[in-house]
């Protein structure tokens, strides 16, 4: 039997349509949540994605993920692609709090609930829910402990802060939380270096190295994110500045996030205090919000994770609530 070109074309189209049917039916049967992250450039985000995935799987959802690699436009396109794919909800970590607004509006128009994970959008009339850590308060608690250590030690301190990308409200909250406390303690603390990192490890390393060159006597250091610890430790080691608590040249050291390296540094007594975000609670709040919005329930625009500060004095008592400790335990038994 010979096929004409037209018969072949029609046959191919029918075959293609039939082949697509089972996939379409499958997609109809299971609810899908799109999880769109800005990047996986710190353990916090890697663990966050993993925890969300576990939570969604446990509840019977299918998860599709996409990473925008710090590209606002790509993330906007990803949101539209997911809306076209008819997902049932979107959990997003945006690159920029302003540039995400058109994506929220697109989700609103499509009637798809959107939840911001750990990074709120800028003020807008478009509706979405943000699950955020109380960055300022957690930083307050962390830096207060560092100041307490400084006061006990006595003397004057030259401080440096590594500041995150200021397009990220978390970075602003942590910066403000730091200055809330140090500004009240100007009698003993003088901030000599404000180091912008843009949440980039290389930029942080270069900035901190320059800060140490300009002020070799920096002895009070706070990083707005734990993922910069390897670079900080390296920069301090190079200058022979990295010493444990109790050593005469120990730099009073604090961080924010609560990752596994933070726990290790606390345990080894190199780190004085760390602000911990309750990652498990944040993931649960995000998924709950999606479920509630799908069911038409009212959800607050901001859901707060109060977090906590972990330090040498309460390490044993609260470490089980630290997500980094969970990861550390899994790795080290």
């Amino acid at each position, binding site marked *: 039997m010979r096929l004409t070109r037209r018969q072949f074309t029609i046959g191919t189209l029918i075959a293609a*349509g039939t082949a697509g049917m089972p996939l379409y039916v499958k997609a109809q049967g299971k609810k899908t949540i799109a999880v769109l992250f800005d990047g996986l450039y710190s353990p916090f985000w890697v663990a966050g994605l993993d925890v969300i995935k576990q939570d969604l799987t446990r509840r019977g959802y299918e998860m599709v993920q996409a990473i925008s690699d710090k590209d606002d*436009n790509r993330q*906007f*396109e990803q949101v539209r692609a997911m809306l076209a794919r008819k997902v049932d909800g979107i959990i997003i970590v945006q690159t920029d*709090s*302003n*540039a995400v*607004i058109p994506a929220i509006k697109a989700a609103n128009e499509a009637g798809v609930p959107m939840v911001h994970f750990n990074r709120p959008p*800028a003020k807008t009339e478009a509706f979405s829910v943000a699950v955020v850590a109380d960055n300022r308060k957690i930083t307050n608690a962390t830096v207060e402990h560092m100041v307490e250590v400084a006061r006990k030690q006595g003397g004057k301190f030259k401080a440096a802060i590594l500041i995150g990308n200021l397009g990220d409200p978390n970075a602003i909250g942590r910066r403000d939380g730091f200055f809330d406390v140090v500004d009240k303690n100007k009698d003993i603390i003088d901030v000599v270096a404000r180091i912008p990192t*843009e949440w980039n490890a290389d930029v942080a390393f270069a900035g901190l190295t320059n800060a140490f060159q300009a002020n070799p006597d920096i002895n009070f250091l706070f990083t707005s994110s734990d993922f910069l610890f390897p670079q900080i430790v390296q920069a301090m080691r190079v200058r022979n500045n990295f010493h444990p608590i109790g050593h005469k040249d120990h730099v009073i050291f604090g961080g924010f996030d609560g990752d596994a390296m933070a726990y290790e540094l606390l345990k080894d007594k190199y780190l004085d205090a760390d602000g911990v975000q309750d990652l498990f609670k944040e993931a649960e709040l995000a998924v709950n919000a999606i479920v509630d919005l799908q069911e038409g329930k009212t959800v607050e625009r901001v859901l707060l994770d109060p977090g906590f500060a972990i330090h040498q004095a309460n390490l044993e008592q609260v470490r089980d609530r630290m997500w980094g400790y969970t990861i550390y335990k899994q790795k080290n038994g």
Partner: protein
Amino acid sequence: MSGLLMAGTRSAGPRRLLRHLLFSEYLVLYLSVAYFAAVVPFVPQMASAEVMRNILSDMLPLLVVAIGQTFVLIVAGIDLSVTSIIAMASVAGASVMTGDGGYLAGSALAVPGAMLAMVAVGLAIGAFNGFCVTRLGMPPFIVTLTTMMFFSGAAIWFTTFHTETSSIANLPHGFVVLGQGNLGGVPNALWVVAAVGIAAHLVLARTALGRRLYACGQNRNAAAVSGVPVARVVAAAFLISGACAAVASILYTGRLQTGTPILGQTILLDVIGAVVIGGTSLFGGKGKVLWTVFGVLFLVLLDTSLKMLGMSLFSVFAIKGAVILLAAVIDAVRTRFAARL
């Protein structure tokens, strides 16, 4: 004898078809259609009107930058600075019109003033690139690589003067609709891009400048001997590329409603890839606006399908890289075996 003739006729058919496909300027369009047909069974939503609209809207800003890049590639150059032009123009324009203390905030001139500033940024950087390449004899790769680095940094530095955060928001509605609205059911961006595309096509196909651009790309010395003002022609290509990147910046900034210094930083592979996939030669002297349209269509189609499949970013990079490499290989094969078929 008749048997030999029959065999010859039989083999001539597929050969003719192969030649037609391989050497057709519509090859990438055929590939796009074939790819679409292949991917639809896996992602049925690709065939929906919504996704078609998305593909069109994603194509538009990328196409404008790619058209500018086509001009530069035709003269055997390369413009790596387009991404920083997009970023710099974005924050410069936003600083003029933002409601949060913009230079012309609240004025009726805010939007046209901002757009003018954006195009001026593109032209200025393009002119600088052209000057360095033609007057100082520097390689385009080095010139545009360094201007890319400089203006990427300058865009962030410039932003810090206008806002506490990393982006400039609160842009006027009149500007935002340019990137998002539509006129007579046709997206505003499409009118803009169509105008740029038609103008670019006419310049390349119907004007003395177009002929001179191809001549410079094929053999710069021969062109100079023939009386072509090579320096001015090459500089014009960079100027056009800068202006096109600025127009793309207007569209991107409008769609995101935000002036951001990281805008477009990751699209360089897409821009050059789309032009090369279309068939424009990296060695100069060959290229058409229509080919670039097909190249952008193919790349956006690929990108959209991978997004819809929920592929990881790293898989997307790998697949896109492989496709661009394949396009370059096909180009080389086409050139090498042109005489044999």
